[in-house]
């Protein structure tokens, strides 16, 4: 009897030791990861999703054009749609796929709106800092591991993603008080993934013409993950819409629209290139962009979000949460 007791005490003490070391290692990881609290806020989008997961009926997925154009607050106030924007800078189609997979594991949304702007980049697109910002905030799961494998450049290592400390330890030279202060910081700095930008930097040429030429075929991996994302949602009974966020960028081709349309047709989905609805939306690229048309600023975002909200309300069956106290409380907290 006593012997068994000792054994249990032994196991507990070893477990405690392991936990203590784990705590130390996790804390080191958190201290050394870049903070993205005062600048580069896009680095927080992924992690801030989790507390909002249970309120996310609609999830917008895509690249930076989405997080500067879709303001979930507008969708809430005008249509009672509760949504989150899982879109990071340079978020490739494969990261987008795993963003959906990760979200679905936590809570099944009613609808996924997948932005395809980034489909114009090739299979070998790698931009380490962006991959980092998208993924370092993701909780550890098989989706994250698979996503890392799909996104890593040739010089990167899996271990450096699982333990960001291995990647960021040389920041010891530039560590500031903020790194300690925000190590366990949980307050949201984005508005459900939306990052407002007040700047105005108008376009020079008012007319939008797509000029991308040459290879305008969607590459294999892009197409593969686009299909995979649609199929995942279908198998879970999640409504899917494909869209291209409006932007005043000539780096696009109607060839892409045609190819995406044929994918959409195959699955019986809708694809909308919102560039074609500029006038209806009321976008004016002499005032609504912070960077000569690449993204929308706050005034552009309000216009687009309002239009998008009406479009979703008219065409899809999304639950109005304006009558649900829990949702109201949550949204009051975000908007405040």
């Amino acid at each position, binding site marked *: 009897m006593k012997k068994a007791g000792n054994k249990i005490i032994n196991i507990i003490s070893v477990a405690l030791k392991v936990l203590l070391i784990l705590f130390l290692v996790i804390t080191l990881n958190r201290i050394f990861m870049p903070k993205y609290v005062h600048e580069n806020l896009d680095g927080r989008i992924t992690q801030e999703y989790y507390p909002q997961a249970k309120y996310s009926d609609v999830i917008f997925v895509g690249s930076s054009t989405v997080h500067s154009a879709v303001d979930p607050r507008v969708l809430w106030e005008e249509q009672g749609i509760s949504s989150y924007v899982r879109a990071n800078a340079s978020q490739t189609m494969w990261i987008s796929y795993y963003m959906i997979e990760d979200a679905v594991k936590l809570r099944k949304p009613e609808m996924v709106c997948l932005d395809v702007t980034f489909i114009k980049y090739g299979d070998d697109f790698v931009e*380490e800092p962006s991959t980092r910002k998208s993924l370092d905030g993701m909780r550890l799961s098989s989706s994250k591991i698979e996503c890392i494998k799909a996104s890593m450049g040739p010089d990167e290592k899996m271990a450096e993603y699982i*333990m960001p400390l291995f990647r960021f330890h*040389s920041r010891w030279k530039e560590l500031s008080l903020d790194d300690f202060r925000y190590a366990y910081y949980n307050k949201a700095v984005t508005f459900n993934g939306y990052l407002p930008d007040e700047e105005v930097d108008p376009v020079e040429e008012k007319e939008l013409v797509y000029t991308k030429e040459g290879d305008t075929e969607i590459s294999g991996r892009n197409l593969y993950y686009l299909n995979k994302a649609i199929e995942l949602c279908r198998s879970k009974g999640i409504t899917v819409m494909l869209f291209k966020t409006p932007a005043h960028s000539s780096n696009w081709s109607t060839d892409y629209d045609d190819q995406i349309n044929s994918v959409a047709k195959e699955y019986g989905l809708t694809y909308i290139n919102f560039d074609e609805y500029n006038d209806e939306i009321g976008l004016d690229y002499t005032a609504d962009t912070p960077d000569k048309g690449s993204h929308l600023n706050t005034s552009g975002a309000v216009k687009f979000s309002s239009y998008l909200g009406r479009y979703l309300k008219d065409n899809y069956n999304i639950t109005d949460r304006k009558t649900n106290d829990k949702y109201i409380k949550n949204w009051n907290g975000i908007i405040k």
Partner: protein
Amino acid sequence: MPFISVDFALFVTAVLLLYYIFPKRYRWVVLLIASYVFYGLTGIENFAYILTTTVSAFLGAMLIENKGTEQKKYLEDNKNKLTKEEKKSYKAVIKKKQKLILTVCILLNFGILLYLKYIDWSIAYINLFRLTYMGRIDFIPFKNLLLPLGISFYTFQTMGYLIDIYYGKYEREHNFFRFALFVSFFPQIIQGPISRFGELAGELYKEVDFDFSRIKSGFYRIMWGLFKKLVIADRLAAYVRDAIALRETYKGLYILLAVFFYSMQIYGDFSGGIDVALGVSEMFGIKLAENFNRPFFSKSISEYWQRWHITLGTWFKDYIFYPLSLNKGIIKLGKFVREKGAVQFGKRIPIYIPMLIVWFTTGMWHGSQNRFVVWGLFNFVFIVLGTEFEPLSNKITQELKLNETGVMMKTYRVFKTFWLMSFLRIFDISADVPSAFDTFVLIFRDWGSFNIKFVYENLSLPQEDFIVAVVAIVIMFVFDLIQRRGSVRERIFKLPVIFQWVILSLLITAVSVFGYYGPGYDAASFIYGAF
């Protein structure tokens, strides 16, 4: 799989789990499989080499033993028939046969090693010869052979075993697979220590109970090894490289600093790696031979060599130095010279000639370039000088009434030995022999021009890294000082738990944060821009 990598850490963890899950009797099998998996990961084709060594040594030992049993049986059977003389000559015949077996095995194994290591070196000289004396420019191409992982270490270890069997020091291992583990044991195969069968065999095959304190103790040792390697050695490497490369621009103290840092680098790197190897083994309950005994506290060069890379030193002593110095030819030569009247000289022959050969070989072990041979010969010369002048220096200290055992005298000797060895290492960091001398001469130039700013800005050791390196070196020095009075870990484990945690946390933090590894961090690239 590099020794110091996350992959290796995961590998060790997996093997540890399997090792302690398996019944005690079969644990060595887990180690054997793990060792071969580890070895196979470096390239399947390397199996050919290690298997050749394993099989040839196993067969060699078996044949030598068979001859021994044959002799025993014959002598037993004919106990009363044989005269003493007949017995003696029979024994000599058997010994001769055993010697033949041993020689064949040694030639085969060292032949492979020498061929792989020196073929390109030889080709270079053949080409040079053909060019100079025959005017031929059709150079023989280099073979560019890759050395199989750890081949020097396992060849030395296995041949040591065979020689010991030949001497009859212990019984051979009769189980081929157990023997294969002795040759291939993964923690020590990359960089040693070179174990002796008598010591390692008992450790490898003994059946140990799981004991958490072993894991803990091994973990501390691994972390300490990583500290020395990652925080000190790898941080200093770039400075040493740059300062030596730019020696014409940065003379004097820059080079002296590089020489000092190189000593710290090589010690941190090598002894740190050994700490990892011993720490990993300790987790399996296997004690490997120590390879370093605070070498920088040696008071003479010969003492230094008893404390640096100990297992290689004793290997050379037991398998080259003694056999040569007890060789009949050399003893006769010494006697002959003594009888001719040169008594002192004759006495030294059986010592210095084998020692010269040992140092020549040690030089070759370190690398296939001339500078290593020259480095070995310098060691020899310094040791001879040290021995020959010992009476004189003793006399001087007596005359000056210096306290031979006092702290001052000891410190002076330690200081002198450290710098002598450090200067010799210039051969290690130079491209060839002339540039090594060149570097040495440049140390004494332009001391006034030293400006620490250039170390920070032009020689790859930024101020923050310089500070970390110096602090870490001081910690290593203090650690080695404490170690003089016994195991530092045992002392730590006697401290109150809270202090143990503080020390462990600091160690983990120091290694993971201040370790010099991975890609650097460039904040600018993280600033949102492109898309």
